[in-house]
């Protein structure tokens, strides 16, 4: 078991910087997800921790040992690749046990461990098959078994589920989470899927263009996005953004886009009348209301999207599209006038220039 410390990590390919001065501290036993849009440097970061990519600058320590200059095999880490990377010329059994056999472990040592991981991942029946004769999900399990059998200090996953269909992805996601609860091995999991990140992570490291945009628990990231970018990236349906201006009055009020909204004065202590802000309204935090309720918005229904238990209602409010989620969507149809509201506590405000959150607490 081990904690991971990355100090001032820089990575450049030629003159093109990919990671710029990244600081990261991952405590022992934690399940961390690197989340971010494609090309933001998640894989590069993971591969530098694995030792598959050299750092241009900075140090990486695992379990207190500086591993920056160690080859991948000596870092005590195991990695699961997006493509599974199983050895096609070996049976599943040989794939899983290769690392142990290479270290010269005896049969008596290997057998019980093989049985254990095979059982954990439901691979008992497939041990004598070749990888190409397995389905994608089974291949991914073999890749995980191969990583697990050596009981590494750290597990690294690079988008391990993105080649699987939605149903299987969900199932394996739950399995990975359960296995982590059992083994408690420090894990870094890379994904570009925010839902996957939210469901699986202890902590999310949200990256953008080679920098950490925000680091925190899924709840923190969802409820207190540090920037407009984070707010926009996290949550489905995506957040609504409205340009507005703080107006004078006895309550903290923003006005813009034909809407007048009260904000939480505890959250935004520094807002001054006349200041321009960009408000963020999460669809999931809004619902139908009586006309005249606090923060009520009225608009015309443009489209209703059925999501099963809930529906996303896209409305037009003073020329701007605003969507919200409600369970009572079945009574609505395009053209209807609706009234919906959001509690002041759930309104986010960002600096329109920098995109930084203006929330203080």
């Amino acid at each position: 078991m081990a904690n991971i410390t990355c100090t001032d990590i820089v990575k450049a390919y030629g003159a093109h910087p990919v990671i710029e001065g990244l600081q990261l501290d991952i405590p022992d036993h934690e399940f961390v997800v690197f989340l971010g849009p494609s090309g933001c440097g998640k894989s590069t970061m993971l591969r530098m921790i694995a030792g598959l990519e050299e750092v241009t600058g900075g140090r990486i320590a695992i379990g207190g040992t500086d591993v920056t200059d160690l080859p991948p095999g000596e870092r005590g880490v195991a990695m699961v690749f997006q493509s599974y990377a199983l050895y096609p010329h070996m049976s599943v059994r040989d794939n899983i046990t290769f690392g142990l056999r290479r270290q010269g472990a005896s049969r008596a040592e290997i057998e019980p461990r093989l049985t254990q991981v095979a059982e954990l991942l439901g691979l008992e029946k497939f041990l004598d098959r070749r990888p190409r004769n397995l389905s994608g999900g089974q291949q991914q399990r073999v890749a995980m078994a191969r990583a697990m059998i050596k009981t590494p200090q750290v597990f690294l996953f690079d988008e391990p589920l993105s080649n699987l269909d939605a149903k299987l992805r969900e199932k394996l996601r739950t399995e990975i989470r359960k296995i982590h609860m059992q083994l408690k091995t420090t894990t870094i999991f890379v994904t570009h899927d925010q839902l996957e990140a939210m469901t699986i992570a202890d902590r999310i490291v949200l990256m953008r263009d080679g920098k950490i945009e925000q680091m925190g628990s899924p709840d923190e990231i969802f409820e207190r996005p540090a920037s407009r970018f984070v707010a926009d990236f996290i949550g489905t349906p995506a957040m609504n953004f409205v340009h507005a201006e703080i107006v004078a009055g006895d309550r903290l009020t923003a006005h813009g886009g034909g809407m007048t909204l009260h904000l939480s004065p505890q959250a935004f202590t520094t807002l001054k009348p006349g200041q321009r802000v960009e408000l963020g309204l999460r669809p999931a935090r809004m619902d139908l209301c009586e006309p005249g309720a606090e923060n009520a918005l009225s608009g015309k229904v443009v489209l209703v999207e059925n999501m099963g238990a809930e529906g996303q209602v896209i409305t037009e409010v003073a020329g701007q599209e605003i969507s919200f989620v409600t369970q009572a969507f079945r009574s609505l149809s395009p053209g209807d006038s609706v009234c919906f509201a959001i509690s002041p506590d759930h309104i986010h405000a960002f600096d329109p220039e920098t995109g930084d959150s203006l929330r203080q607490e």
Partner: protein
Amino acid sequence: MGKLISATLTRAVLALLIVLALGPILWTVLGAFKELRDIVTPVPKLVFTPTLDNFATILRNPTIRDGLLHSVIVVSAAVLIGAVLGIPAAHTLARHARKWGDDVQFFVLSLRFMPPVAIAIPFIVIYLDLGIYDTLFGLVLVYLIVTVSTVIWLAVPAFERVPRDIEEAAAMEGCGPAEIFWRFSLPVAAPSLFGALVFTFVLVWNELLLALTLAAQNATLPVVAASITSLGKEVPWGVINAATVLLVLPPLVFIGLLMGLLNTMVRSGPK
């Protein structure tokens, strides 16, 4: 109905093509077992009393026997050394020098553009000076140009098709570069490399011009076979046919051996 006709027609054309392609080979094989009078009859004979005399003649003839031996030695050595030098070079090119890989590959290929005559004559001069004219060593040396370049040219794409992830997964398990090459890249690329080696083998096995110009006493089988055809009026057709069959056999044996090697290599890993 139209479908049936077109299907039948396709089959007929295919059958014709196969007969056209395989006919001469079959005829040669048959001829190798015929006596001369069965071959030179105006009406071709399909039924005849087979004889091994032709093969006996060949294997008793010291020139041909030596030619066969020389061919086996020279070609095996050239292909073997070509593979030992060319395959690791191709892996390195494919993995670590992709930037220049295309240029190197083209340069290597361009060696094959040169007409053999263009190098044969300078080689005669150089070989005479070095005192390796008409030696098996000299032939191996000149064939190495062909084998190394062909092996590299064909093996680079074979290694490029090996997923990089597999090599990285092996590195994660602690394997060094040599071990990764030996235990992973090579076995995974083996089926394509196998084709490359067979192609290279056949290329030099059938090589006539360089062998003709650079060796006299130490002639290889194609040179000997070519000389039989110019024996004079009394052409020993049966013997020529048998010689041809003998010429074709070693590549087949070679392919068989490689197949066996491939299978054991692919199956092994650490015990």
